[in-house]
């Protein structure tokens, strides 16, 4: 089947058309079914090599990509670079060239610097998937969030989605804003002013500094993780104040639509950005997001795999 996905890499949601997004979500639906069978393995990527190159530790994203690759039949190798060559002074480009020489077919890359994955993609010959670059983008997270929402609400267009918390430092927020606005959802962001990046209102979202107003009549409430470093860097004073004002609890959630779903990209800080009762409550779809993560990554790997050279034997 000729690919309906015209891109060689997935570096971000930016650059994807609504058709591209819909295509990935549709094929992810199929992957969900595959993952729910006893026999979970397909042969789509048999013989292909997938390297997960993580410059920043991430258990859940890395294992999700690993599982997705394996279910498609690829040989998957994990490299945690944080602990190896970078420490020895090797530059990002050197690492890329070294890996390129090993002839992988797909590179999944996470890096702490915005733009690093795109830079790396210019230097290698294989397909590259951005698994998170700094505070820039995390496209597969946005896709898995969209898939989760769509499965619950039947659509994305017209929904009111409130993204709450550390918008300034969140790649999840950026990718979600891009994806959801592209698909016609009404996106609201809510955060203390110190955690709102300059000019965020120009991204097509409405900006709130009150949870109550941001959550009013929302269909989806998406909470973001608050890093402890934000306290020492004087963005917010304390966990207890943050939870009181910004933490999602039953009272704040009560102004959203009664059937609103609650999401979190994980890992959660219970009692910081979210009340444990809500995180584990009936409106929470947080664990389902994890399942959708594997499906979406399978869909992305398949879509990019379709562009890989098909000639059996020697490749250039």
């Amino acid at each position: 089947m000729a690919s309906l996905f015209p891109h060689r890499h997935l570096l971000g949601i930016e650059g994807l058309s609504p058709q591209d997004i819909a295509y990935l979500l549709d094929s992810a639906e199929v992957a969900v079914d595959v993952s729910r069978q006893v026999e979970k393995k397909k042969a789509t990527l048999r013989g292909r090599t997938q390297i997960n190159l993580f410059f920043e530790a991430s258990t859940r994203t890395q294992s999700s990509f690993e599982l997705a690759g394996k279910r498609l039949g690829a040989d998957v190798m994990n490299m945690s670079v944080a602990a190896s060559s970078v420490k020895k002074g090797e530059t990002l480009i050197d690492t890329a060239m070294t890996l390129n020489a090993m002839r992988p077919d797909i590179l999944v890359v996470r890096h702490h610097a915005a733009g690093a994955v795109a830079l790396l993609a210019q230097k290698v010959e294989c397909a590259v998937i951005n698994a998170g670059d700094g505070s820039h983008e995390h496209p597969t997270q946005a896709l898995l969030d969209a898939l989760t929402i769509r499965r619950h609400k039947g659509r994305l267009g017209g929904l009111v989605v409130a993204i709450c918390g550390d918008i300034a430092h969140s790649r999840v927020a950026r990718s979600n804003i891009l994806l959801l606005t592209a698909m016609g959802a009404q996106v609201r962001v809510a955060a203390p002013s110190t955690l709102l990046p300059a000019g965020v209102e120009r991204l097509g979202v409405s900006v709130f500094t009150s949870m109550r107003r941001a959550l009013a009549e929302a269909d989806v409430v998406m909470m973001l993780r608050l890093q402890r470093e934000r306290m020492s860097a004087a963005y917010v004073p304390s966990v207890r104040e943050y939870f009181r004002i910004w933490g999602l609890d039953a009272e704040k959630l009560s102004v959203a639509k009664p059937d609103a779903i609650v999401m979190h990209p994980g890992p959660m800080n219970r009692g910081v950005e979210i009340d444990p009762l809500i995180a584990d409550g009936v409106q929470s779809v947080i664990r389902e997001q994890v399942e959708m993560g594997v499906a979406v990554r399978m869909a992305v790997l398949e879509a990019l795999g379709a562009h890989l050279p098909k000639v059996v034997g020697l490749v250039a």
Partner: protein
Amino acid sequence: MIPPIFFANARVVDPSRGLDARGALLVEDGRIVAAGPEAANQGVPEGAEIVDCLGATVLPGLVDMRVFVGEPGGEHRETLETASRAAAAGGVTTIVTMPDTNPVIDDPALVDFVLRRARDTAIVRVHPMAAMTRGLAGDELAEFGLLKEAGAIAFTEGRRSLKSARVMRNALTYARDFDALIVHHAEDADLACGGVMNEGETATRLGLPGIPREAETVVLDRDLRLARLTGGRYHAAQISCAAAVSALRRAKLKGNGVTAAAAIAHLSLNENDIGAYRTFFKMSPPLRSEEERCAVVEALADGTIDVVCSAHDPQDVEGKRQPFAEAADGAIGLETMLSVGLRLFHSGAVPLIRLVEAMSTAPARLLGLEAGTLATGAPADLVLVDLNRPWIVREEDLHSRSKNTAFEGARLTGKVLRTLVGGRTVYREH
């Protein structure tokens, strides 16, 4: 039940209504029933105490935005009780306390402590400011939300000045979400380092290291730009020089919501008053030259400077009986602020109504307090003053626990006769 009080034959000055006229004032149930030329029209209720003011002036009680108290941790210098007595004697009905105590007021429980102690011991109203950063260390923000909920009226680093522009930006930004006011003593600690008085000829003659005016303006300029960037509410705690006044004037023209205060000392004294190394005249910012003082007075008259505060800072004998360079900064001022301020009225530099506005109406408005007005229904926080009565400041007459006044022996014109808080008389001249 306190009987109603009727003040007859008074000059009533109420900047909140632009009123300065002969008239009367009636207080009942702790609130003002009427004040002004027509106040006597409805007659005087039965059983009322009638005060013949003999032409003396009734003002809304003063609101002092900068009061250092030793409680908790330095009760030998000043308690909330002694500070409140000094305030009442000076016509000050609301004091705003600074968080530089031991411990620092940076936790909701401590705000609660100050409010409870004030409720139990103070005879005027007390509103604590809380620390802007944890422990006044300048690194991490204090809990503006929880502190405000506990009763903190504004946020400040007190005597200190915030070094980090980044933290100031975040504080102003974060404060915006709570409509909280940031009050800041603008002084670059590095530039002022080692200095003990205003830099210039006088310092040179005295052989004392100086503090340049730029120590103030460098930080004020930074803060004004950050206030504009963030849209946060910024109040300069104490302005002492002409260059700072110009910076403020420019910022206000641009429509920044910034405000500023000058301490009474910087409006009434200059560096020459230090004379023979008199440590009661050592303060931060330092007393400046006469030209600078005049510029600050002019800025008060034209409204560039919104507020006058006492910067009441009680210091014990230990701290002040030292060589000038080693002595503690600060002077008390609650009891003398109004009388000293009246010098500016008597000299014609500042109209009475403007002076009262800066000492009462403006700070009340800035802090969102129901004070600074004699409007019908307002709490009866007021002061009766004989504008022309001369008196001499004597250490032994002062109510403050510390006696470090810069006005010992000064001859002042204008004396508080009686002070009311919520209709209760808290000070009466004998």
